[in-house]
């Protein structure tokens, strides 16, 4: 077993999940089974292989440029006037569980 109860509690905390006792037990079992399967990646030698984060680094890029300049095709000029309208305030708060019409309201953050 690679993942322990303590790891499950730690990761749940990072992920902002509480999880019931039963869910924690299932996570322990499932994460270990999946991670055991994933271990097979270590059969591959990858020291000299570049990581691939995005498919889009494979087309449209200007290889003669460096860094983010390679993605120049996706960059546009700054627009000072005539910006695309953003969502009206009213529409943006319409789905809020709790709002005063101006702000999203949430339970108290700082205890006094």
């Amino acid at each position, binding site marked *: 077993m690679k993942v322990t109860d303590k790891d499950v509690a730690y*990761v749940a905390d990072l992920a*902002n999940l509480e999880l019931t006792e039963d869910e924690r037990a299932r996570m322990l079992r499932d994460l270990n089974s*999946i991670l055991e399967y994933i271990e*097979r990646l270590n059969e*591959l030698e*990858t020291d000299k292989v570049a990581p691939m984060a995005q498919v889009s680094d*494979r087309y449209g890029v200007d290889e003669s440029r460096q860094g983010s300049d390679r993605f120049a095709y996706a960059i546009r000029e700054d627009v000072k006037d005539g910006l695309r309208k953003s969502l009206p305030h009213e529409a943006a708060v319409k*789905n809020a569980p709790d709002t005063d019409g101006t702000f999203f309201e949430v*339970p108290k953050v700082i205890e006094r």
Partner: protein
Amino acid sequence: MPASAIDGVRSAIAERETTATALAQDFYTRIRQEDPEIGAFLTLCQERALAQAGRIDQLAAEGKPLPPLAGVPVAIKDVMVTSGVRTTAGSKILDNFIPPYDCTAVARLEAAGAVILGKLNCDEFAMGSSTENSAYHAVHNPRDKSRVPGGSSGGSAAAVAAEMAVATLGSDTGGSIRQPASFCGVVGLKPTYGRVSRYGLIAFASSLDHIGPFAKTVKEVALVLRTIAGRDPMDSTSAEVPVPDYVAELEKPVKGLRVGVAKEYFGAGLDSEVRAAVETAIQKLAALGCEVVPVSLPHTEYAIPTYYIVATAEASANLARYDGVRYGFRAKASNLSGMYRLSRDGGFGMEVKRRIMLGTYVLSAGYYDAYYLKAQKVRTLLTRDFDEAFKKVDVIAAPTCPTPAFRLGEKVNDPLAMYLADIYTVTANLAGIPGISVPCGENHEKLPIGLQLFGRHFDEATLLRVAHAYEQSRKSGVGTDAFVRSGERISPMSR
């Protein structure tokens, strides 16, 4: 070229043989009759559909030219946002979410005249391979109601198979269009990454997510792709690559094209009847004049572990936004962090939590290099496999899935077994290449089997051409393709 249902609808409306409104009403009647036993729909948007149908009928009445998808009844997987129409992503956490804007692909369909009937059931946040992870209800495969329709776009495949929509949109992060298309006996296409804008697609794994069409025939899929493809300034990963006329391209000959076959897609775990059907399909392609060439994709066995690291890592970040503050479900709690936790605990289902946990784990301090970075490197190797193969061939043929549709409940308690249902499809997501599933026969229980074809980046035209030629070659005598019969005008009732 035989008439497609889409052309049939459009010309029937143009010639005033029917109206878009009558057709939409017919489809709603059919949905009310059929869907209680299938469960493909989560939400119907009759008001929006009839308003659109009215606009089309108005154009027809005035004798004006009709747009390419005029009056075509379509439906949308519930992971694409629709302005004013509830969008849940199959999750309770978005049970009451009414989006304030439209997904680009949906807006483009509607601009082309399509009538959107409603929103389709799916696995929660598109995480699953059977649609059993929907927080609402399961979907039953129209071909055998004791079986799953596949997933996560199970509702999208089932709606087309049961003729409750002429075409649907799904999303595919690891096979979620192609696998259900295979299980339900319809055509499903995952385009190249960047071909179709993801703006308005509720994010699961952003580097792997794709939107694509389902229909009964390759031609209809080509028509829908032509409509939704192309650069969208709202998605910076949508590519500035010209969109060809996919429909015109279908008729080009396939003679001389090279079809690759990789032994890695025919190994242990492949059902013998699926193997036989796919091998017969490849022989058919040879008979059509294609040259069958062996290719090697040596890293294929590493695709599932790579996928479940990359996909869950991205998901854990994407799903951090569901915190009960701005939209969606909020649990009662006395302080803010408690509210986040209880909202997420109460709003997410087990599979979503499992993937958030796995994704958070592989990104957490001390494990990033061992898992996430390692997976990104193997992703490079998997992509190079395809680069090498496509130097020798124009398309690659493989099974879509190792088995036909499995039974409801069969894999629901074994996540790893469920993940392995995607073994032949995740590679195309990791490499970003297009893939299509086309029906290629049935097993002894009359369950559909799918032939999968992969193509080069942005070469959907060749992919669709080969799929179309194959489909035409086996069409005669196939009783399942009700919409395909040459020259027949489509009506949902004439069956």
